């Protein structure tokens, strides 16, 4: 695609793209740090997560304001309109993921986790899955790759299964030994936050499908999404 005749408009859109990538990178970094603090029970790393939250909030406001400014001053259409609309939404979802990551970190700071407990759950697998999803989304946006967004959608179901598995493990542990009640409550909260982050990544993937392909796939099952376009069938599920 050529540059705009109006260079100022081009600069605004480039800046928006840059800021969205930066926002995604910050959130990705925040999640990785939060997971590291969780798995290693490291409060220093947890503090880094809380520090990142401030930067994410600042960037959230900048992106939000910039989208409004572009719409008001340049009345974008077609692919430009889709970038601004989806950028506005993706920014909201990323900021919410940031908040949830902060919640996880606050739990880490509060709880005392018996050394064996984390090994008994699937929290680590779930955390790794979330990192994969966020990474795929960022790559999808940067490389304009529809299939990576669709890959993410397919992983949401796996995270849901892990959530239920973790929930059952935690309740069993609490029933067996009262010493697990306190840490398991915190871990269940973390489990819930990871599940919610997965739902936000689903929303981001849906926005990316609209950005690249102009298709609104909200509230559709993944099987139905694949039926819309034969090109979408070949998805790397690994």
């Amino acid at each position, binding site marked *: 695609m*050529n*540059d705009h*005749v109006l260079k100022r408009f081009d600069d605004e859109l480039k800046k928006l793209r840059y800021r969205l990538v930066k926002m995604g990178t910050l959130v990705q970094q925040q999640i990785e740090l939060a997971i590291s603090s969780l798995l290693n029970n490291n409060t220093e790393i947890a503090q880094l997560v809380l520090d990142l939250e401030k930067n994410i909030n600042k960037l959230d406001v900048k992106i939000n304001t910039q989208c409004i400014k572009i719409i008001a001053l340049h*009345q*974008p259409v*077609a*692919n430009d309109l889709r970038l601004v609309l989806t950028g506005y939404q993706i920014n909201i979802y990323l900021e919410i993921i940031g908040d949830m990551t902060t919640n996880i970190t606050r739990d880490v700071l509060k709880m005392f986790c018996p050394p064996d407990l984390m090994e008994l759950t699937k929290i680590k697998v779930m955390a790794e899955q979330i990192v994969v999803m966020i990474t795929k989304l960022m790559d999808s946006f940067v490389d304009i790759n529809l299939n990576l967004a669709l890959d993410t959608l397919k992983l949401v179901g796996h995270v849901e299964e892990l959530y239920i598995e973790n929930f059952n493990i935690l309740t069993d542990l609490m029933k067996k030994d009262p010493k697990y009640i306190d840490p398991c409550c915190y871990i269940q909260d973390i489990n819930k936050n990871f599940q919610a982050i997965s739902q936000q990544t689903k929303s981001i993937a849906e926005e990316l499908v609209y950005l690249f392909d102009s298709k609104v796939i909200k509230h559709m099952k993944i099987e139905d999404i694949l039926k819309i376009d034969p090109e979408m069938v070949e998805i790397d599920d690994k």
Partner: protein
Amino acid sequence: MKNVNIKISTKNLNLYYGTKQALMDITLDIPEKQVTAFIGPSGCGKSTFLRTLNRMNDLIDGVKIDGSVYIDDINIYDKNIDVVQLRKRIGMVFQKSNPFPKSIFDNVAYGPRVNGISERSKLEEIVVESLKRAAIWDEVKDRLKSSALGLSGGQQQRLCIARCLAVNPDIILMDEPASALDPISTSKIEELISELKDNYTIVIVTHNMQQAARVSDFTAFFYIGELIEFDKTKTIFTNPSNKKTEEYITGRFG
């Protein structure tokens, strides 16, 4: 196009100014009682194409046209077509308002008088109805005998629309009808276009793409004499099929 009747249909229409070809093989169906906008850069042929729809180009020396333009299944370029009768069915509004140096009443009554209506009460009925339909009645009802030239630019343009409606056309062609008007007058014209489409087929040429997006149901994009893309306006402005269209509407031309 589903669920819409076709009012105007052009088939393989070519137009030449002398040796220069200005329209190339235009095939297009314009739906009835909808607003269709023509957009494209200067010199793309959109106004020329508009003027083929009421044979206005016949008035220009050296113009040659081949192909066909059907209105209600009648080819308006057939030899036995009465062009004067044809133009009675097709009103036209131009970029610059062109009221006659007469009273407001006489401007609107002009067409019906030419058509042979002389009864005062009938003329009054037509004038009042036309001015109301053109959304200017409340502003001029107390000064119908005043000169039309005393009206503001926006009012003059709506008066011209009223004059056009007075002969009861099926189709209204508009060639940049609001390009010389301020934003409020432009809004009034756009609102009027939306109201008129219930009864008329409207084709509008505009350089203002936001205006095309606001007022039209369908949009045709022209480039260097060719019709590049025609689709529902919401599709053209959110997800055009053609790369050229996308580059033009997003301002990436040049």
